[in-house]
């Protein structure tokens, strides 16, 4: 049962990565642009690297604090509920406030890593991962009994890093495949065709993930 849950959660980490990656809002068109401007595929790969760095930073920046908080045994349940509620609140906020964050347009074109970090953060991409991550920590800890806080902390932080790495790898692979396909074969016409307004789907995803995160606390106990 624990193995199944763990496998399912890791699949969710990968799936959310693919989901983020194919969304042009997370940056693959910037990689196409970089490739076209430098007239070399090298420019495209460099841009993908920078986008991955930014996305990874946005993920790990949110997961680490939650991982640290989770070691406070007394508050564990509250931390999980809070994480779910924050994701739900972010989703509801994005549903009500349909305005796209303007600040992204102020980031200079040369600062791709910063742009990627800001885009992921502004859209609550990391929050989507938190309930999944907390689920993974929980699954791992179920039979761990009462380990020393320090050991648990280290375990959680390693998990946070691992989740961020796997998620970002999935994200940049899926986005990268599209970017390379557009750059090499499909041509820039696909860029305007690739945009679907996923605002509502995205917001609902956040609410769902948060809801499942909270519901799973009941099952686990």
């Amino acid at each position, binding site marked *: 049962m624990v193995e199944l849950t763990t496998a399912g959660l890791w699949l969710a980490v990968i799936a959310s990565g693919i989901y983020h990656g194919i969304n042009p*809002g997370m940056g693959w068109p910037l990689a196409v642009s970089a490739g076209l*401007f430098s007239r070399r595929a090298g420019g495209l790969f460099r841009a993908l690297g920078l986008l991955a760095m930014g996305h990874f930073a946005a993920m790990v920046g949110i997961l680490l604090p939650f991982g640290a908080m989770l070691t406070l045994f007394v508050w564990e349940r509250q931390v999980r509920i809070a994480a779910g509620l924050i994701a739900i609140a972010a989703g509801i906020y994005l549903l009500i406030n349909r305005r796209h964050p303007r600040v992204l347009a*102020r980031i200079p074109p040369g600062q791709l890593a910063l742009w990627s970090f800001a885009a992921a953060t502004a859209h609550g991409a990391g929050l989507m991962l938190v309930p999944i991550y907390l689920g993974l920590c929980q699954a791992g800890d179920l039979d761990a009994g009462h380990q020393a806080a320090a050991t648990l902390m280290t375990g959680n932080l390693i998990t946070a890093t691992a989740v961020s790495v796997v998620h970002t790898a999935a994200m940049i692979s899926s986005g990268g495949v599209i970017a390379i396909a557009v750059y090499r074969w499909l041509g*820039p016409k696909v860029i305007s065709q690739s945009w679907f307004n996923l605002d509502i789907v995205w917001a609902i995803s956040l609410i769902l993930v948060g809801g499942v995160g909270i519901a799973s606390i009941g099952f686990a106990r």
Partner: protein
Amino acid sequence: MTLRPDPTFHATAKLAMQAPVENFAYTLMLSADFSQPDGLAIVDVNPESKDCGKIVHSVTMPNKGDEFHHFGWNACSSALSPLNGHPFLERRFLIIPGMRSSRIYVVDTKGGPSKAKIHKIIEPEEVFAKTGYSRPHTIHCGPEGIYVSTLGGGGPDGTDGPPGIFVMDCQTFDVIGRYEIDRGPQNKQYDFWWNLPRDYMVSSEWALPPQFEKGIVPEDLLSNKYGHRVHFWNLRERRNVQTIDLGANHQMALEVRPAHDPVKEYGFIGVVVDTTNLEGSIWTWWREDGKFHCEKTATIPPEPAAKDDLPPLLQGFEAVPPLVTDIDLSLDDRFLYASCWGTGEMRQYDVADPMHPKLAGSVHIGGIARKAKHPGGDYRGGPQMVEISRDGKRVYWTNSLYSTWDDQFYPDGIPAAMVKADVGENGGITLDKDFYVEFPEGYRSHQIRLEGGDCSTDSFCYPSV
């Protein structure tokens, strides 16, 4: 907010050229004596239509004395900027500033040409209060919203502080505030445009309101007091990074036309008149190793004329200056069109080599002394605001420059006209003798916008490949 980007948004200029052609043109009408309200005329330009060359609908404003000049769309291909991350806008609203009143109209064009109607009016007080600027002019869609250049600062005559650019929200049309964080030596303003992915902006200088509102001030012109500098900006940092003085004799640097393909780091600017010899000129600016440069790359000589054929303003010179009042660049960056409003000539330059424009075509029409005729109607004035179809095959233009200036250069009046020329396969232009748009009595015509975008609207964010 839409589910998909507007189909008239294109990633590259090349894709925009391949898109379906325009069926309608939007042309501004102004009442030069302010006796009637200004308006927007929607002109059928589909050669298959029985109404081709006719106004099929017009939107009349509720106020008088606005003085329409330039205008633009609420959204263009710049929405596809990969940095923007959210291209779900419609090319739907025309933002039309009143250059004299500082009032701004937002006209909704959705639902077809006969359905255009006023959507919102931004009163001058809102512009003054939120920006300290007055006399709004050029519109472009950029990072964070709609950019509007202004020609005046605060106060009744617009000289309280320098003019500049302000930003408007592209959905609510609220005036957000000033653009500039560091304007450097910039103290006059006219046109502006940019290279979005390369993150720079270029702006030009015409004059301050007292130098144009009541007419051209000959003493100011002859003492070189009109604008003659070009400013280069770090677009997103909102800083003036370099100012190039074209030389004080190069009076009135107006339209800024960057190459449409953002890979190219150059563009053009037109100078109305050289006060030492009455020449008009075209300048090429470019960026190299982070520095901007600007050089005169084409000149257009004045034409001698008998004193009796000239308005009082020009009689002392016994010559007609070409007066390069507008330039426009085709989407393939191949042909630059230059309106010689004084001599009555539309010139086409091949600018495949931007440092060496080659004259490739010419049409004579109107002119202060030439008075070249159009078979379709009583064309007066010269070629002025010029717009090129996206595919580069058709060139449209109107004939009025600015109410009070029209009267000084063409005292017999300039009834509104809009005409068209066809472009040859490898350059060359010929006047379409059958295309002549008649406007309602008492109006003059100014800038033209084409359905789905044209050659002075859209900013493209991806290289043409």
